[in-house]
């Protein structure tokens, strides 16, 4: 009886709050009439919203116990984890093979390849940001700034000087890395929340500068006509001014799909290079120093590790991969504007890293696929898309608070896994 009473009491309080909030937010509606505005009082909507909150609260209170019990029985990725651990190499090979053959699979159309390309951009960004957030433990909320720097570097070099994509790619990476150091230097002493706020500000500064420096970046109009990547000089157009285009050279009928497929492979290779780089550098002294710095900076100093250089190298390398992905993004779209580099992009990339489980490479792939494909799949619910997206994130965080695949493997071991005898 008391349980029912508390449930009603809580629900009553919740609906009172809902009423107070809904009165100005939902209760009044302004209508434009010929002469001006007039108010309309929508008491039905008000009542409905309060009733929804009341019933919802009642249900929540009465099922709270159930939810806590059921948490224990929710499936975990334990099985998948053990499979990945045991056959680490073969699992990675399967994933790469699937990715390589993806464009030629049945039922895979132009739209699917395009979407896969988008997912791979975010996978690459996630792997790049993972250096900064997952390994070095520096919470960076402005990662999109480096993505923008890479994109604009290539867009400007490509449109003003007619440089090719492949020539500009290293330059875009280098310029982004330079910006990484520029940002890193003033924030060396900051950690955690403070660092997050400053990096967030840096991301916004880059976007605002790009919007307002019209002479350089074209302002809100952006830059159009960015050159597409070529395959050893072969373009993917119907006709070229000189030389051959791809379909002429290989004597194929022209199809727009060639370009889409080619772009897919370019980003796949870029992402794989990022992955191999991160996996390798993690096992090098610099990678271990990043992790040690994340664990305890003071202890690092006492062992003679220079925290300035170590942090800056993490910022620079993370930014470099962001810049490379940005250059690809510019080349793929052919048009960029500051609109593409808003804070929400940074938030999505960070969510990918956190959801994937910090430091987990395959977790980031899963998280990127989920975060990019989910909003696409929910397009029909356009208005509620972000709501469902948020709900999904909250659920994942409740279910696996340390990320989908959070598990740290030591960078070197003395014993083969699971045994206590020397190798």
């Amino acid at each position: 009886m008391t349980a029912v009473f508390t449930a009603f009491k809580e629900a009553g309080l919740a609906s009172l709050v809902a009423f107070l909030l809904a009165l100005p937010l939902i209760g009044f509606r302004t209508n434009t009439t010929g002469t001006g505005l007039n108010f309309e009082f929508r008491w039905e909507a008000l009542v409905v919203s309060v009733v929804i909150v009341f019933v919802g609260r009642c249900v929540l209170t009465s099922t709270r116990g159930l939810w806590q019990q059921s948490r224990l029985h929710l499936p975990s990725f334990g099985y998948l984890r053990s499979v990945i651990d045991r056959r680490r190499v073969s699992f990675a090979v399967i994933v790469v093979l699937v990715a390589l053959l993806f464009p030629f699979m049945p039922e895979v159309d132009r739209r699917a390849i395009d979407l896969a390309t988008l997912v791979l951009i975010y996978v690459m960004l996630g792997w790049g940001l993972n250096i900064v957030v997952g390994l070095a433990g520096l919470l960076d909320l402005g990662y999109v700034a480096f993505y923008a720097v890479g994109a604009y570097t290539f867009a400007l070099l490509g449109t003003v000087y007619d440089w090719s994509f492949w020539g500009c790619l290293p330059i875009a990476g280098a310029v982004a890395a330079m910006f990484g150091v520029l940002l890193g230097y003033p924030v060396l002493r900051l950690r955690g929340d403070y660092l997050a706020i400053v990096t967030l500000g840096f991301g916004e500064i880059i976007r605002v500068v790009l919007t307002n420096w019209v002479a350089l970046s074209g302002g809100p109009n952006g830059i159009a006509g960015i050159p597409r990547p070529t395959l050893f000089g072969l373009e993917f157009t119907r006709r070229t001014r000189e030389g051959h285009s791809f379909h002429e050279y290989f004597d194929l009928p022209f199809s727009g799909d060639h370009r889409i497929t080619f772009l897919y492979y370019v980003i796949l290779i870029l992402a794989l290079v990022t992955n191999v780089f991160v996996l390798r550098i993690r096992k090098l002294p610099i990678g271990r120093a990043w992790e040690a710095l994340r664990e305890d900076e003071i202890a690092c100093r006492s062992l003679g590790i220079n925290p300035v250089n170590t942090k800056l190298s993490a910022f620079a390398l993370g930014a470099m991969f962001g810049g490379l992905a940005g250059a690809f993004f510019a080349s793929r779209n052919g048009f960029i504007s500051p609109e593409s580099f808003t804070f929400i992009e940074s938030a999505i990339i960070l969510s990918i890293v956190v959801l994937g489980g910090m430091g987990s490479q395959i977790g980031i792939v899963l998280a990127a696929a989920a975060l990019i494909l989910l909003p696409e799949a929910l397009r029909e619910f356009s208005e509620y898309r972000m709501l469902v997206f948020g709900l999904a994130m909250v659920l994942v965080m409740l279910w696996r608070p340390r990320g989908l695949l959070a598990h740290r493997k030591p960078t070197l071991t003395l014993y083969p896994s699971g045994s206590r005898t020397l190798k």
Partner: protein
Amino acid sequence: MTINELLRVEHLTMRFGGLVAISDLSFSAAQGEITAIIGPNGAGKTTVFNCLTGFYKPTVGRLTFTVQGKQPVYLERMDGFRIARAGIGRTFQNIRLFPAMSVLENLIVAQHNELMRASLFSVAGLLGLSRYYDAENEAIELAKKWLDRIGLISDADRQAGELPYGDQRRLEIARAMCSKPALLCLDEPAAGLNRNESGALNELLRDIRDTQGIGILLIEHDMSVVMNISDHIVVLDYGQKISDGFPTVVRHDPRVIRAYLGEEEDYDVDAVQPGLPC
């Protein structure tokens, strides 16, 4: 005091605002000896350490550190990580391991600078040149040697944070030793250890002194722990040196006895100056 003087502290004074934590402290530590700094809580022992290892910049004083065959360096001017590179290893009162990393990794991180040079600042490592792998294997061998000595060889792949407290203490000492210091500074190494563990610790410290030929400087507030392992004891009280010499001499120094036991009318062993880090 001895021929192979490693560290000489002269007129060290540290003020925090109006509070004088250490005033005009001079002492020295020699190679091949265990020097202990003792004193009641709040005497300024940890502050001395933090000045030596670069966490504080002393208000006044000169700290000269001379490794045999090298130019003397002046620690009061250096950054913490450069002091560590010059050859001072340290442990912390509240253990600072890298808890999420494995025991072995903790010891490999300690050899960061050598490995970094061997990997040509990651270039040789990324390319997979054998030059780097040789250095890495050497580093693993050194780590194995220390794991053997502290009895944690079978726990090499466990997370450092999972180890029992006593093992973490010994691991922290092994980690400091892997950075190949000329002077090992230990901040209350016996704190929180039981009688057996602290006996084993004394054994380890003597062994390090005798086989590695380095100097050890340790802080302790419990006199009984240091009496039987130290070669030389410096006693602090309220930031001032009240006694300095062989353990037998210090033990019978009336001022030391007064600082620890207090005088009849003023019996307060834990007289702590407020706000003073110990």
